């Protein structure tokens, strides 16, 4: 794939793109959250990710956990934004808000995190991504939101999304690098111009996070073929607020 060759990363080359038709509208969907942000439960409940060594495992969270329960182990993105507001990489509370407002049907009872800085995703492909896909299927998930954080995380997110689609669950990858999303051939993907450490936007900007998620769902709903990447007009504002051109 020539395009991937131009990128400064050694990416897995994917040809076939899995595709699970998305029939259940967002308002009726049970949405599962998967992040590549290296999130884990503190207080010894989860082992931190071995971020220095490309840890391919995942962590599972009951969706009643609170932000104070969560910690981050990741070497591939600037974690300052996520440390200030975990929702910028793991938007569990924002999805729960959308469910409460009736925009989505429900949030699946478990959420998942990988540490996306995985240079050699052998076990990820053979074991961990299919394991999460199976769990999503078993929960009756009808849509998976996969949030990519650092650069290589776009590949990890896409590989997980591909496994999820193979299990029959439609997915959306939200990332910050359109070229990477196209190169790794995520089934459905949406790109925004935010820093890799804050795909949802500036920390604490709840209204914008929810607005962005709504736009992500609406953009992805329109996709009629696999491998497409939509770019949304959300851009980072260095003064602290988010900018939206739409």
């Amino acid at each position, binding site marked *: 794939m020539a395009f991937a060759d131009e990128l400064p990363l050694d990416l897995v080359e994917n040809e076939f793109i899995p595709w699970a038709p998305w029939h259940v509208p967002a308002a009726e969907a049970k949405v599962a959250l998967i992040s590549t942000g290296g999130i884990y*439960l*503190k*207080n*010894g*409940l*989860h*082992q931190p990710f071995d971020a220095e060594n490309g840890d*391919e*495992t995942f962590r*599972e*969270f*009951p*969706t*009643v*956990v*609170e932000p*104070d*329960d969560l910690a981050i182990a990741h070497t591939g993105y600037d974690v300052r934004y996520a440390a200030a507001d975990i929702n910028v990489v793991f938007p569990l509370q924002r999805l729960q808000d959308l469910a409460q407002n009736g925009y989505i049907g429900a949030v699946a*009872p*478990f959420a998942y995190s990988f540490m996306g800085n995985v240079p050699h995703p052998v*076990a990820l492909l053979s*074991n*961990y991504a299919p394991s999460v896909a199976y769990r999503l299927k*078993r*929960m*009756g998930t009808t849509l998976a939101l996969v949030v990519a954080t650092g650069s290589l995380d776009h590949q990890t997110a896409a590989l997980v999304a591909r496994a999820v689609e193979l299990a029959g669950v439609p997915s959306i990858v939200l990332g910050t690098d359109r070229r990477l999303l196209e190169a790794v051939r995520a089934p459905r993907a949406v790109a925004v111009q935010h820093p890799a450490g804050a795909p949802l936007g500036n920390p604490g900007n709840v209204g914008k996070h929810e607005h962005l998620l709504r736009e992500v769902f609406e953009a992805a709903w329109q996709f009629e073929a696999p491998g497409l990447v939509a770019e949304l007009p959300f851009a980072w504002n260095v003064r602290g607020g988010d900018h939206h051109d739409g």
Partner: protein
Amino acid sequence: MTAENWVEVYETGDDLQMELIRGLLTTNGIPVVVQRTGAKEMGFYFGAAANGSLIVRVPPELADTARALLESGAEVPEE
């Protein structure tokens, strides 16, 4: 609901058993955290026979309900 003080209601070394317990509790509205210890942290590399424990933890206020469910031998429904 912070997970800091969640209490242990079940421990097993068997991955399949853990999945059944997790499914039983979850489908009855009880959130679950599975804490992995020992080689269970690296299940892929060591397989299902890895030494270590899978500890099922639930919120303290639901611990008695969880234990009662586990002791009742309730069938495991779909999540």
